[in-house]
């Protein structure tokens, strides 16, 4: 009998739990430890944030589903890992603190044979003074944040309707943010809603980003063929900004948000202040801050996590200059380097380096996107990890399954406005996510793997994916036919 403990019920953790629960039916236990009672389809938070969807449309309660599937659920936040056990008990275990309404604050421990750390990001609003829902800006990173954003957006729209001229600023709230795609989507959804309401002439929309160029998206941009030309995502994105009259500030690391202005430094070393009326700025991400203790109780967290709190896995972490980055540096199996029965798929693993070119201002401030680990690759990694654990539990002597970001692709459908007839989205595919300049010398990616197109069809795809992925997450009939 094997005990599998999964920390986190986001895209990666839930994917692993669902697959393991169908493969390991009898005699094994699967336990999910996660602080929120609900699952959230985060990509649709963009529509919650402009009031197009209600939070109930992007979330559902996990406990009934897990009960049906024989998965134990602890509504709790993992705090300490004991991968060697303790002085009295050699069983590897995890300590957690309950967060559910009835037993909030209680601590507990659970033993494991295999541990999946799928705890995703800590939303590090504290990195920038004044950033986030406890400061002066809104966020769409969780369903609750997006609900708050929608209320503040509606209030701002009412002011424009009353005749005021307002500035809406959307983007990244620190020089090292990732997830620019989400900020891009929210920018164009806000712009779309203002236009549909006939208010665009009194609303200025500004995209403020740490990307050196538009269209970088934290992956160093894309090159794809369009009408016989190899074109760049930079040109393509700038064209959309021009068409929709969205102003952009690039290469900006936000340093402070006051109640009326956003202060930032740019790559050329200049400092600026941007007055605003409504602002949604993404936070930088950290690991969630788990502590690791050895048998004697000594803190060995730095053996397991990097300084950013992300778990060190089977990657090549040797520091090397940008020109020497290789596709093979990226992890393949997500096995923890220090303890091979621990895995870290999704945002929880430590990337070996960025994907976009590293850049800093003359005073040394880093202003460059951290590498994104978006939904589709997070699900693919979790699937591979679940397969590896299944094989080991069932005693199959096979090599670990792999899903390196340098060998998987990603489809990104970035909403640019909702509506069955008037919506649009930028649909992109890239293969692989991490450029492989050895295999694909021209652009680092497969010549036919990269693709980009803007139009109404993209909105339909994004809307379809919303229903498909919630169907899949709920384990409804034929859910296994829907790919990660």
């Amino acid at each position: 009998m094997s005990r599998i403990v999964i920390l986190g019920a986001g895209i990666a953790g839930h994917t692993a739990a669902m697959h393991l629960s169908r493969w390991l039916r009898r005699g094994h236990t699967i336990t999910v430890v996660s602080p929120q009672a609900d699952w959230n389809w985060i990509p649709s938070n963009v529509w919650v944030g402009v009031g197009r969807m209600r939070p109930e449309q992007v979330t559902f309660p996990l406990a009934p589903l897990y009960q049906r599937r024989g998965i134990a659920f602890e509504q709790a936040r993992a705090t300490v890992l004991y991968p060697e056990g303790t002085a009295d008990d050699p069983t590897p275990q995890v300590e957690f603190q309950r967060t559910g309404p009835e037993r909030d604050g209680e601590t507990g421990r659970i033993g494991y044979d295999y541990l999946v750390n799928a705890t995703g990001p800590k939303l590090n609003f504290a990195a920038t003074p004044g950033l986030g829902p406890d400061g002066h800006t809104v966020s769409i990173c969780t369903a609750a944040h997006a609900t708050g954003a929608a209320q503040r957006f509606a209030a701002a729209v009412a002011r424009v309707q009353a005749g005021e001229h307002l500035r809406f600023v959307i983007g990244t709230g620190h020089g090292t943010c990732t997830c620019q795609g989400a900020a891009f989507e929210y920018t164009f959804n806000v712009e779309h809603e203002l236009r549909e309401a006939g208010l665009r002439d009194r609303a200025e929309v500004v995209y403020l980003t740490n990307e050196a160029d538009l269209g970088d998206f934290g992956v160093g941009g894309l090159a794809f063929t369009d009408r016989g030309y190899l074109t760049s995502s930079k040109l393509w994105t700038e064209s959309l900004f021009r068409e929709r009259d969205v102003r952009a500030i690039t290469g900006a690391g936000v340093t402070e948000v006051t109640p009326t202005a956003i202060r930032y430094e740019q790559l050329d070393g200049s400092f600026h202040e941007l007055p605003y009326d409504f602002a949604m700025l993404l936070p930088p991400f950290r690991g969630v801050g788990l502590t690791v203790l050895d048998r004697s109780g000594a803190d060995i967290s730095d053996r397991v996590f990097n300084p950013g709190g992300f778990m060190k896995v089977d990657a090549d972490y040797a520091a090397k200059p940008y020109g020497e980055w290789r596709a093979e540096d990226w992890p393949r199996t997500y096995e923890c380097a220090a303890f091979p029965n621990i895995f870290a798929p999704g945002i929880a693993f430590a990337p070996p380096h960025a994907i976009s070119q590293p850049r800093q201002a003359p005073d040394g401030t880093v202003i460059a996107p951290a590498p994104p680990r978006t939904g589709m690759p997070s699900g693919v990694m979790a699937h591979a990890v679940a397969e590896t654990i299944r094989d080991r539990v069932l005693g199959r002597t096979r090599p670990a399954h792999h899903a390196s970001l340098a060998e998987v692709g990603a489809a990104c459908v970035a909403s640019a406005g909702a509506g069955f007839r008037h919506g649009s989205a930028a649909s992109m595919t890239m293969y692989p996510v991490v450029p492989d300049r050895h295999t694909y010398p021209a652009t680092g990616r497969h010549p036919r793997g990269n693709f980009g197109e803007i139009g109404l069809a993209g909105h339909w795809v994004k809307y379809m994916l919303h229903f498909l992925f919630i169907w899949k997450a709920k384990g409804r009939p034929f859910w296994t036919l829907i790919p990660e």
Partner: protein
Amino acid sequence: MPDTTATTATTAPVYAAPVFLDTAPAPLPTPQTLSRRRNVVRQLGRFVAFNVKMIGMILHGAH
């Protein structure tokens, strides 16, 4: 250890007005392109095409 903080003069940065990116050199879609992007019949075809692309990529990336 010497106290380095005491001697470091921290000058507050001077904040200038924002400078926006000039997107004027980027291509502007023509009215025909914009109408193609909204044309339901054409977009139905694009919907199918993008789904085929995604499936191809999933199959290619499957291990």
